[in-house]
């Protein structure tokens, strides 16, 4: 490996309480500009892993480094310029317009007393354009459909301009065309040098989008590596505990149980 990993975990352990260890000794290196899928059954620790990378949780053991720097040495503001998060879903109690909502993504670049500037508005509008949401800019977020809301959260993270993009189930609420839109945006981000990591329950999403795959089970990595080498029938069977078939359709991997 010649490039410095943008994200590097060494022997990371985490437990919410003494009885249940959620992550046991996770180590991995993520290279810049790659797309990585995190697969695993419910309760495998995927979301916990994302929250640790984000810095929301502190590992009990092990270290997390961002571009070589220990994560805990970054200020909250600095970290938020590095890492962006698209949560699985988000309850928005007030009816912000879509544009106001996306503008919140500019927070890492604004001081506590600042208001968004003209350039922030321009960046937010550009993010809306990228996701094809421009016509909805004045719409109230609670009136959006589930898919549109997912796209709005995506636009917000684009406005944040992070170097590492974490997504929790990015296509869970999306129809086929919106799913396609998100995939294209993520591919374009990766081409532009942004590192993408996402959790998913759908191995075929991993097969379509990811360069690398991480398989988790009960808080440990079962396998990690390139898509071709990792997304195999044996690995997936071990991950989910059921027989799995992996086929190749038009040159692309296709997984079915």
């Amino acid at each position, binding site marked *: 490996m010649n490039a410095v990993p943008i994200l590097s975990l060494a022997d990371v352990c985490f437990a919410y309480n003494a009885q249940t260890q959620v992550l046991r000794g996770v180590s991995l290196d993520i290279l810049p500009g790659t797309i990585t899928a995190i697969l695993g059954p419910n309760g495998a620790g995927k979301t916990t892993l994302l929250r640790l990378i984000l810095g929301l949780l502190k590992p009990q053991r092990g270290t997390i480094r961002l571009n070589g720097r220990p994560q805990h040495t970054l200020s909250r503001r600095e*970290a*938020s310029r590095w890492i962006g998060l698209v949560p699985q879903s988000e309850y*928005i109690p007030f*009816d912000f317009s879509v544009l106001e909502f996306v503008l*919140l993504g500019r927070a890492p670049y604004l001081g*506590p007393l600042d208001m968004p500037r003209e350039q922030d508005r321009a960046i937010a509008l550009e993010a809306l354009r990228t996701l094809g949401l421009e016509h909805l800019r004045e719409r109230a977020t609670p009136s959006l459909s589930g898919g549109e809301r997912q796209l709005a959260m995506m636009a917000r993270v684009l406005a944040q301009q992070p170097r590492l993009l974490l997504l929790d189930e990015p296509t869970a609420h999306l129809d086929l065309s919106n799913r396609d839109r998100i995939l294209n945006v993520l591919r374009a981000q990766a081409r532009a040098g942004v590192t993408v990591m996402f959790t998913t329950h759908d191995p075929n999403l991993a097969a379509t989008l990811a360069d690398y795959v991480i398989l988790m089970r009960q808080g440990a990595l079962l396998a990690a590596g390139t898509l071709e080498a990792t997304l195999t029938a044996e690995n997936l069977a071990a991950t989910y505990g059921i027989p799995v078939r992996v086929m190749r359709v038009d040159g692309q991997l296709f997984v079915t149980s």
Partner: protein
Amino acid sequence: MSLWRRHAFQLLVALGLLTLILSIFLGRFPQPYWMPPTMLQENELARQLVFNLRLPRLLAAVMLGMTLGGAGAVMQMIFRNPLVEPGFLGVSQGAGFGAALAIIRISNTPLVVAASAAIFALLGLLFSYALARHLRYGGWVLRLVLAGIAVSALFSAGLGILKYAADPLRQLPEITFWLLGGLWGVTWREVLYLAPIVLPALAILWLMRWRLNLLSLSDDTAFSLGVAVGRERALLLVASVTATAVVVSVAGIVGWVGLIVPHIARRLTGSDAQYALPGAMLLGGIFALVCDDLARTLFAAEIPLGIFTSLFGALGFAVLMMSNIARGRE
């Protein structure tokens, strides 16, 4: 953004100043309802009245309305719950209990009642906070809400006991009147007591108004956007609640301003707190001013302010909710 929303702020400022100026000449002197402005030049009594009684009272009404409206908007966003009002963390009920206790046990001089109310308002807040820390249920926001409900109920039970024990001819009417809220006892002394706490608190809320939007997001999302969630929420909460406590200690429990004004403001300006928070402050100030004008002008005997704020707050809210005029978004 519609034309109205873009200029809502300027319009509210203009409306507020106009209301303030008109209010100076409203009252029961020299005759009911209206004092000709020329009297200020000719009549020494009129000058005395305006500068020593009306002006401090008007300023107190503005501070009261701005505090309750602004703090209500802040707390609704921080608690991510549009049904929260600024006194709910034990502050309003604590103040009521403190005031009743002073009236029965110590003295009914306004300053003593206010001091006792302020002490118990802050005690209510501290109890709520301490209780929330020890609850073993739910997230931090839910625990604060539950603790606030429990502490408020406790103080309102204590208030019930005090009212039951009060002398029904002298003390009970006074307690009831205080609880309904009003500004009849306000002089420059009360204004000087309010201003050093209320104005800095309002300034903090005002300065962090865009930031407030971020605090209404989920903890995970706010964190990922670089917000020190716990610290920033605590700062805005302390500023809001402290200002509310001193206002309530002077004016009693003026209901519905802190609950309804933020809703109306959001209808007018949209939900972005960059506009909605100043909107809620200004609207709260105007609303309290108008209600207080009515309270002291309409009849020879003063009507408690809280009655008008509840009446017009509820009516105005219902009308606005039913109409299409101020949908906020087209």
